[in-house]
């Protein structure tokens, strides 16, 4: 099993960034340029800068090897996967892939809310490169795996989010490529779903297929992959066994209490452009257990969206999810978001957590229907010892979280007396 499945040599990808100060481009301008030099879209515009999202990447993957790719947001992981999945072209270098490639950068790509479960299975299967015959042959398996038998002929817009995710993953799990490229797909869905996905993933990994796996969940990387590549600023900084790669990644990780994105993104109905961690209104990445963290999320909504919700998930430093919450936790109402900028704030008391690093990821979706936007665990912060008695007490206990709970104490005899009284009346 020493044959090569993937060989990447000198791969790089650059983007042209046009600075806003250069002003508008009009069709007229472009037409003029087009006449002069067909197809070289505005390369003579003055204020442009080249940004290398990925540069000089070389590595080999043997057949049957499971390779984890880790790195911070913007390190180039997604760009690398997009190139290897043939979604986008590299700027320089090349890669050879031997075997049928299946890539899974998102679950449920192509799902249409108006179509039924059955129709979506075929649609999504075809999108993932399966033939109709393949899908037909595995149809029953897919349906059984997703547990949606009774709802096969219901439009998926009426599915619960759990059902929707299960169905989407079921289709993906039943494609059988020789080389599998997987991006952060385990990030969505509830804990049970994630467990199921992870189980299926390790099954695939053990089945002798070549897998390239990107995740922020370090425990998933450690479970699935023997080898790990650590990317930083578009280059490979470490190519070693996964333990070492994960260790270095966690060591070098910086805390980050603010995520900022361009305020405008026309491709999304809802665009999260700003998220930050606040302590009494001040941005910080270090909190004491006795303090309260305020998570602030700003998003721009470009059209009315019914039943949209904003959510976050809270994970340990190594990426294991602890819990998640949505802005409708208390109201339970399915409201709607109107066009404009919205600010969401959530207060998280920290007294139940241990000392250490934590991460917060942000997402927005219309449950059962569509993912609107998400930022994979961009916020990293630490909880520190504030040497309060409560904190000391907590640290000596067992468990991942150490909540302090209210207890009631009363004399046993009083309780039994109350009971007798209650009985006699």
């Amino acid at each position, binding site marked *: 099993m020493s044959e090569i499945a993937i060989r990447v040599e000198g791969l790089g990808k650059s983007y042209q960034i046009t600075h806003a100060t250069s002003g508008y481009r009009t069709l007229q301008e*472009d037409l003029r340029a087009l006449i002069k030099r067909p197809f070289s879209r505005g390369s003579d515009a003055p204020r442009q800068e080249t940004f290398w999202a990925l540069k000089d990447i070389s590595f080999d993957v043997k057949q049957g090897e499971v390779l984890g790719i880790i790195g911070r947001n913007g390190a180039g992981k997604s760009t690398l996967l997009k190139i290897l999945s043939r979604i986008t072209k590299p700027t320089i270098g090349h890669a050879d892939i031997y075997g049928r*490639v299946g890539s899974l950068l998102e679950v449920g790509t192509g799902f249409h809310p*108006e179509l039924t479960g059955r129709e979506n299975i075929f649609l999504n299967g075809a999108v993932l490169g399966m033939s*109709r015959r393949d899908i037909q042959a595995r149809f029953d398996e897919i349906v059984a795996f997703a547990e949606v038998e009774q709802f096969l002929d219901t439009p998926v817009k009426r599915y619960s989010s759990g059902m929707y995710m299960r169905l989407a993953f079921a289709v993906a799990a039943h494609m059988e490529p020789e080389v599998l490229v997987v991006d952060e797909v385990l990030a969505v869905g509830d804990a049970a779903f994630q467990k199921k996905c992870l189980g299926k993933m390790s099954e695939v990994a053990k089945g002798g297929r070549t897998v390239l796996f990107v995740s922020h969940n370090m425990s998933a990387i450690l479970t699935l992959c023997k080898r790990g590549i650590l990317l930083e600023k578009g280059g490979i900084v470490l190519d070693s066994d996964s333990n070492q790669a994960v260790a270095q990644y966690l060591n070098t990780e910086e805390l980050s209490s603010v995520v900022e994105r361009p305020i405008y993104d026309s491709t999304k109905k809802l665009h999260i452009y700003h998220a930050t961690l606040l302590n009494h209104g001040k941005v910080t990445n270090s909190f004491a257990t006795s303090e309260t963290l305020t998570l602030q999320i700003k998003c721009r909504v470009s059209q009315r969206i019914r039943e949209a919700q904003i959510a976050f998930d809270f994970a340990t430093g190594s990426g294991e999810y602890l819990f998640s919450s949505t802005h409708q936790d208390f109201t339970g109402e399915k409201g709607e978001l109107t066009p404009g900028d919205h600010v969401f704030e959530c207060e998280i008391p920290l007294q139940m957590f241990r000392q250490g690093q934590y991460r917060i990821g942000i997402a927005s979706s219309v449950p059962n229907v569509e993912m609107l936007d998400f930022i994979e665990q961009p916020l990293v912060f630490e909880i520190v010892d504030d040497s309060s008695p409560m904190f000391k007490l907590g640290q000596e206990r067992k468990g991942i979280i150490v909540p302090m709970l209210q207890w009631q104490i009363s004399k046993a005899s009083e309780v039994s007396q109350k009971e007798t009284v209650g009985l006699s009346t």
Partner: protein
Amino acid sequence: MASQDKPVQAPVRHIRIQPARAWVALELQELWHFRDLMFILMMRDIKLRYKQTVFGVVWVIIQPLIASLIFAVIFGRFAGLPSGGVPYLLFVYAGLLPWNIFAGALQRAGNSLVGDSKLISKVYFPRMVIPVASSGSILVDFAVALAVMFVLLLLNGWQLSLNLVLLPVFTLMVLLISVGLSLFISALNVYYRDFMYALPFIIQVLMYASPVVYSGDLIPELVKPFYAINPMVGIIEGFRWSLLGTGEFPALPLAVSLGIGILLFIIGGLVFQRIAQNFADVI
């Protein structure tokens, strides 16, 4: 790195990923490989189009019928234009059949890539699949409209001729022209959304430049050379010849249609393939 390992040979599918090139082959075999996806996307478009309409297929029947009726009244009755002895309604309807394939395919394909931008940024498949599937979905409307044509002919007691045998060939030709132009427009629309606004207008202008609502005999000598290079002329005349059995076989216009159709398909395809390499980055 690991240079002693030999890449696997023969039966294994090998893909080389390399930077965008100036010109990419049409890769029609790749398109064929993804025919199932094309078919399923086509079915999706068709289902979605009629899923939430009350009358569904009735619209497909009514639209060309009413349009033909209006044209027949205006051009046949009021203006008294000649139609070679054929009832004007039949004359116009036969012309609208291929025209609606052309106009519909262009309109549907035009915005198709932008509409499926999520697919383009998340999975690989030959990008041509999307506009071709969108254009292809018009064939369902065509089939319905054609059935109505036969009913109209029957009601008028019109005799069908052997000319009908060539109708599928003409249909393929109009598809060739439409898809070629669709590829071009859908690709450019990714960069310049202007096309979506210009398209309905352009289609309308082109319709009056083609013998849809009038007979080609009315074209003055002066404009004939320009008129002759319009690939839809041969197709429309071919449809009338085939369905109504009137006039002579339009050999020359059809040859022009075929030639220009092939040319449009190749040019449209090459432009598309070239631009398609960067879709995921710009869409």
